[in-house]
């Protein structure tokens, strides 16, 4: 009679064992160690439940101070600094149109929601102004209202561009303006059917003539059918004058942040890779987005490692897949990318990229939940990631979860959006 319980207990034990990772495995840099695939009966799930900051702040390196530029936001995601120093924050949450198809979708959705804020997304862009430079915004206005899960932001040729979950919009802007009431002009629609990965990341080319939009896949690994993956897991190049667009990269599972590397003017992206192949597969990555490249999804990962979960398999596509430039670690959930420009913070933080890591659910030992610095030399990564902002975890609880990161060369500050405590953190060198 105790047979079912024995099985349940045995599988629970097996799961605990399988969700643990091997700390000796180096999964960062150009050639990450990739273990064998582990598809356990139930994927390892570990949610860091919210704890709150309780007056504390994130930890920054010595020589830096951190302040809350603004609190009580409505799910801040990505940040843009305007030429006059005003800070724009996209607030919202999308993907509500993705239907739950299986019993699993209900259960996994419930579990993952335990690691998220209870606040409702604002569907707006908030403007923050810290004119006296004390690290706290004394002016706060809703610049643009009634958006649809805004995420990516860009400023080109005097206009503000907002990537909603279903369209790229242009808003006219006058310097110093704190409220825009004119309706947005639609530059182009963006793929929005289902929107399993709803975030539309955005950046402008170095010369300002093009906009790039990152569009995530419509599933983890094609479990919603491959017919809904058309123009998903891609990066678009859009001519903002005409709205004409071209797909410059394919198979790039979920490009959650885009940025221009200042030395080479090349487009780079942080990309979230697939889940449920074990605690140390597949590493999320930072890569230059090469024109015409295929990065493997869904058929293969990290170059040409075949994912057996996709049918029909396509060896001809696997053969085309290229490996990304730089691994960030498995399940770290990189959502933010910003390059240090105009000398950055100087010293060891002069040339490189800040990467915001939202944090893991698909492994027993939590990973991510921090902002790292990746040193660059000559426009390429030149070393291991260095922790830059930490303290987001309090043992097994999360005080916050970093999303977008933005380096502002004008004021020499780094801004970090935290979508769990609904805060924008400002990190500056100590004077």
């Amino acid at each position, binding site marked *: *009679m105790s*047979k*079912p319980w024995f*099985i*349940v207990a045995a*599988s629970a034990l097996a799961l605990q064992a399988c969700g643990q990772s091997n700390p000796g495995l180096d999964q960062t840099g150009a050639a990450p160690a990739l273990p064998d695939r582990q*598809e356990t*009966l*139930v994927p390892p799930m570990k949610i860091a439940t919210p704890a709150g900051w309780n007056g504390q702040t994130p930890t920054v390196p010595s020589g830096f101070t951190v302040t809350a530029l603004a609190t009580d936001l409505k799910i801040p995601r990505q940040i843009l600094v305007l030429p006059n120093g005003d800070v724009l924050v996209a607030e919202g949450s999308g993907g509500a149109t993705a239907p739950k*198809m*299986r*019993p*699993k979708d209900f*259960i996994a959705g419930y579990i993952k929601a335990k690691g998220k804020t209870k606040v409702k997304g604002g569907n707006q862009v908030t403007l923050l102004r810290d004119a006296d430079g004390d690290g706290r915004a004394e002016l706060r206005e809703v610049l643009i209202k009634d958006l649809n899960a805004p995420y990516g932001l860009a400023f080109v040729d005097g206009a503000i561009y907002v990537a909603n979950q279903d369209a790229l919009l242009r808003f006219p802007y006058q310097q110093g303006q704190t409220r825009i009431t004119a309706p947005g002009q639609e530059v182009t629609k963006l793929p929005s059917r289902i929107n399993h990965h709803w975030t539309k990341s955005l950046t402008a080319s170095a010369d300002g003539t093009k906009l790039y939009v990152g569009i995530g896949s419509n*599933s*983890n*690994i*094609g*479990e*919603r*059918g491959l017919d809904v993956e058309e123009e998903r897991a891609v990066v678009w190049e859009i001519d903002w004058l005409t709205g004409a667009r071209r797909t410059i990269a394919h198979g790039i599972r979920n490009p959650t942040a885009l940025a221009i590397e200042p030395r080479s003017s090349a487009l780079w992206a942080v990309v979230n890779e697939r889940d*449920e192949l074990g605690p140390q597969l597949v590493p999320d990555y930072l890569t230059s987005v090469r024109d015409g490249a295929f990065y493997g999804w*869904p058929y293969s990962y990290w170059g040409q490692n075949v*994912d*057996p*979960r*996709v*049918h*029909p398999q396509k060896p001809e596509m696997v053969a085309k897949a290229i490996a990304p430039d730089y691994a960030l670690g498995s399940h770290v959930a990189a959502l933010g990318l910003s390059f240090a420009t105009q000398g950055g913070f100087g010293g060891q933080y002069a040339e490189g990229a800040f990467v915001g890591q939202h944090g893991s659910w698909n492994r027993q030992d939590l990973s991510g939940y921090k902002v790292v610095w990746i040193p660059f030399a000559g426009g390429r990564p030149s070393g291991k990631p260095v922790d830059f902002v930490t303290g987001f975890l309090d043992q097994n609880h999360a005080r916050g979860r970093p999303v977008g990161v933005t380096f502002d060369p004008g004021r020499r500050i780094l801004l970090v959006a935290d979508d769990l405590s609904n805060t924008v953190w400002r990190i500056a060198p100590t004077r």
Partner: protein
Amino acid sequence: MRAAEGTGAPVLHPIHAILMAFPLALFAAGLVSDIAYLKTAVIQWSNFSAWLIAGALLVGGGVLAWAIVETVFPRRTERPRALAYLAAVAIMWIAGLINAFHHSHDGWSAVGVTGVALSVVSTLAALVAAGIGYSGQRAGRIVR
């Protein structure tokens, strides 16, 4: 003797028999949709299987509980028959539970060889359980 066989009260209470009809039909339907998925790679068949197995487990859980009670306190049949019925229901349900987790995988891994094999086990066990449970028995053999 022969004429008496198969007549009289069936092993299962009518409500128990109705409950047992669910896993019998749902596991079999799940097996068919598993095969359809492996033949076509159309993901919706895999989704159907996941729900069919979940439904079979839900009602099958009640069947399992009832079968355990009937084995501990045999009222409608003698214990060996109740035990054989319980064994078949237990195999059906446990294979189904493992299969429900297996069907929670993404893509081809939701079914594959393991998934369809577990569906076969659950379906055959459900057939055996129903065969035992729905058959009649001679009135004289009933305990009490």
